[in-house]
């Protein structure tokens, strides 16, 4: 047992804690968007913690360095893909018309879409006027 | 020539199916010629295999990869398999010719691939000697069958295919659970070794496992609770495909059923399975015959008749004696010939007249005399009139069941024949004495030749049944005599 493996174990612990939080959020949150937010955000963090923690732990326990290299590669891949897929999913949900929770205060994407539609409308009107 | 070349039976349809995407630019007609060519080649290989097996009297064991049986997968081409592989190839060849007239729905290249793979699947199911490989070939057959059922892309076709998929999916899951149980208790998948170990398996496991296998195969073999898909699929599928379903796909299922059931004939709890099969078969016969009476569509009526005949075969196979199995195999051969003829002629009428409803058959005797004649012979044969082939197999089934003390089974066969006589005679009456609209339709030469060949075959078996009965006897013994099966497979000493 040395510092590296101790850090690894701590990271795994933190990761599992985030997993727990995301599971909790999945049950507690009111609508699709909020659930998605908690689950993906903390699942990303949780997976990163667990994966890198495992790598550190293995190196600390005297296994080959390949462990940490592989885990870093896996972690990078997750870091790249998980947010993108979550984003695409939520966008799909919004596009197919799943309503927001009643208590929501901001809807930036909706505003953006509306602004875009208005801009297109204005352009069309101007085009008609000429 | 080396017996291992019998693996061409599987390799040839596969490689030619994979080749189709490369030649699809040539157009539909060229692809149909290609299809005919390949099926003819396959029939050639099958004829060579048939000749080798019946002249040497020994089965060909194809060992894939050179591994001896329990380790590798073997194809066991014994007397039964050699005969039926030939039937499969010949029926496919005829139906490939029939496809020229009857299949115009695009895409023809995909039709050709699926056609070849259906043939491959049935061949593999009949030939394989490994229980999981049987599952794989069964899935090849059934997934191709799903696709071909829906091929016409009408609402009815899609609906029939959907029914088939749901039932088939449940059936294949049951089959796989059965394999799991049997593998779990023996540690092997090879049929010969399973037969060797059958006596030592826990009786509950064998009972549950085998009944699951029976239920799984009952979808392909069209036995009672799981055959709801069959009439719809027969009606909706393209005409050549219907004939193939009836002539060999269902036979492959029945064969697999009989093979698996008799493999475990030394196991405790075997009688239970036989009883289950007898009940399923009897219910199949009755349900199908009475539904057939009500049909207004001739293709659907013949489909029901086909299912009831399948019930008779299953009844014969589940009698549990050597004679019963032989009679069942004889009935399989006759049924394949007769149903190919019936579906060929009915399909041809459907193509030329524009539908297969009973009204389209009115006055067919003067409209298309040759087709009507062939259809009449087929119908009379299906009823079981003396001098036609099915008479003899029904007689043998009755003898076999009385010999085993199941007199009521003989009653089932007779009752089924009476009901069949009612609706087939109705059809014949409509054809020859119904109103005629004064139109003559030119009949095509190749199809006429095929139909005449089948008619002659029916009459030949009907008048001289002995050579064919000898064939059926050796094929039936191949299924029934498990100890010879075990002795024929060169098992390598991987044992406990």
């Amino acid at each position: 047992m040395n510092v590296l493996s101790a850090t690894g174990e701590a990271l795994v612990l933190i990761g599992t804690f985030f997993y727990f939080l995301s599971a909790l959020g999945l049950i507690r949150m009111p609508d699709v968007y909020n659930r998605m937010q908690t689950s993906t955000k903390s699942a990303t963090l949780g997976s990163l913690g667990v994966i890198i923690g495992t790598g550190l732990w293995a190196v600390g326990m005297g296994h080959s360095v390949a462990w940490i290299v592989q885990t870093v590669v896996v972690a990078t891949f997750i870091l790249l893909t998980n947010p993108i897929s979550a984003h695409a999913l939520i966008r799909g949900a919004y596009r197919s018309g799943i309503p927001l929770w009643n208590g929501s205060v901001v809807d930036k994407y909706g505003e953006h879409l509306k602004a875009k539609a208005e801009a297109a409308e204005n352009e069309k009107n101007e085009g008609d006027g000429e | 020539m080396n017996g291992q070349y019998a693996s061409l039976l599987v390799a040839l349809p596969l490689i030619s199916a994979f080749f189709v995407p490369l030649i699809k630019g040539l157009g539909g007609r060229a692809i149909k010629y290609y299809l005919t060519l390949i099926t003819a080649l396959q029939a050639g290989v099958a004829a060579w295999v048939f000749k080798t097996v019946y002249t040497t009297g020994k089965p060909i064991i194809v060992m894939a990869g050179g591994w001896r049986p329990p380790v590798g997968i073997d194809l066991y081409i014994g007397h039964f398999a050699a005969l039926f592989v030939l039937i499969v190839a010949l029926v496919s060849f005829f139906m490939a010719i029939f496809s020229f007239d009857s299949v115009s729905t695009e895409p023809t290249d995909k039709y050709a691939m699926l056609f070849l793979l259906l043939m491959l699947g049935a061949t593999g199911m009949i030939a394989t000697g490994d229980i999981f490989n049987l599952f794989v070939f069964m899935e090849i057959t059934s997934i191709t069958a799903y696709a071909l059922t829906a091929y016409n892309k009408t609402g009815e076709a899609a609906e029939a295919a959907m029914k088939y998929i749901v039932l088939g999916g449940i059936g294949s899951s049951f089959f796989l659970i059965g394999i799991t149980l049997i593998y779990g208790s023996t540690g092997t998948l090879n049929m010969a070794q399973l037969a060797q170990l059958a006596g030592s398996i826990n009786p509950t496991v064998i009972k549950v496992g085998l009944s699951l296998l029976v239920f799984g195969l009952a979808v392909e073999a069209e036995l009672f609770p799981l055959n709801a898909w069959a009439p719809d699929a027969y009606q909706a599928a393209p005409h050549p495909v219907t004939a193939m379903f009836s002539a060999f796909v269902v036979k492959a299922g029945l064969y697999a059923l009989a093979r698996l059931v008799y493999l475990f004939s030394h196991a405790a709890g075997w009688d239970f399975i036989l009883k289950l099969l007898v009940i399923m078969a009897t219910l199949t016969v009755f349900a199908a015959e009475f539904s057939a009476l009500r049909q207004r569509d001739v293709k659907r009526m013949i489909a029901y008749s086909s299912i009831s005949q399948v019930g008779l075969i299953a009844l014969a196979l589940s009698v549990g004696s050597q004679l019963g199995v032989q009679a069942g195999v004889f009935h399989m051969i006759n049924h394949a010939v007769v149903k190919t003829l019936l579906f060929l002629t009915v399909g041809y009428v459907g193509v030329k007249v524009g539908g297969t409803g009973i009204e389209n058959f009115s006055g067919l005797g003067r409209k298309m005399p040759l087709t009507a004649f062939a259809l009449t012979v087929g119908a009379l044969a299906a009823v079981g009139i003396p001098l036609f082939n099915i008479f003899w197999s029904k007689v043998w089934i009755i003898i076999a069941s009385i010999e085993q003390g199941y007199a009521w089974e003989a009653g089932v066969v007779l009752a089924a024949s009476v009901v069949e006589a009612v609706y087939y005679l109705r059809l014949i009456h409509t054809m020859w004495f119904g109103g005629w609209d004064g139109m003559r339709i030119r009949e095509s030469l190749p199809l006429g030749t095929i139909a005449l060949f089948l008619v002659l075959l029916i009459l030949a078996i009907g008048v001289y049944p002995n050579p064919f009965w000898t064939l059926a006897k050796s094929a039936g013994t191949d299924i029934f005599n498990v100890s010879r099966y075990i002795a024929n497979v060169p098992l390598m000493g991987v044992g406990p």
Partner: protein
Amino acid sequence: MVSVLKRSLAIITLLIIGYWLAQGLAGVPFGQDRMLVGKYYLENVKAQTGAVNAVTAIVVNYRGFDTLGEVTVLFIASTGVGALLWRRKKRRTAKTEGSVVLRTGSELLFPFILMFGTYIFIHGHLTPGGGFPGGATIATAFLILYMAFVDYEIPHRLFEPLEGLAGMGYVLVGLIGLAIGSYFLFDWIWQTWHWGAANLGRLFSGGFIPIIYTLIGLKVGTELSGIVDSMLTEEVRE
């Protein structure tokens, strides 16, 4: 609404089936060593096939016939889907373009996913995986492109012949075995010449397993992307 009667009938059926299955399973206790043929495989796999992954050796070599059938099943699925969803003229009809994040991300990740799929099927004889997972991974790369871009289509002219050629390649490898070793699907590379015996457990070993898995990987990748394409394109009405 599903009627209560139907539900209760279904539950009774399930109880009967479940009891029946559980009785059978009780005769096959969990976690016990009941290997018969499996033991033979484990003991001889390295010497007889040159692969360290016993599962792959069984899939490709000992039970190669199953795998041939498996490839065929997938081929049937792709052909069948193509036949059912065949249109005289077809085009993508997706309405919404993927967002900037999705488009950039998929362009960035596409080569890496392809590389990862290739890695999986080339190393089938060493690590878990093989042709089917590798091919599926490759197909996901194309699926992502389909999702991100409204007008993307796979190169049909390349993929359809490739699918057929890869399948023919597999059967041909088997037929070469029939010609050389007089058995269909005979592992002629390992059993005849023992190529790769020196580096067991490294990439260049395992007889014909890597070759077959490469063919399967290509075939599965093209097939699954073909299925995705058939399902995502629709008929153009003129």
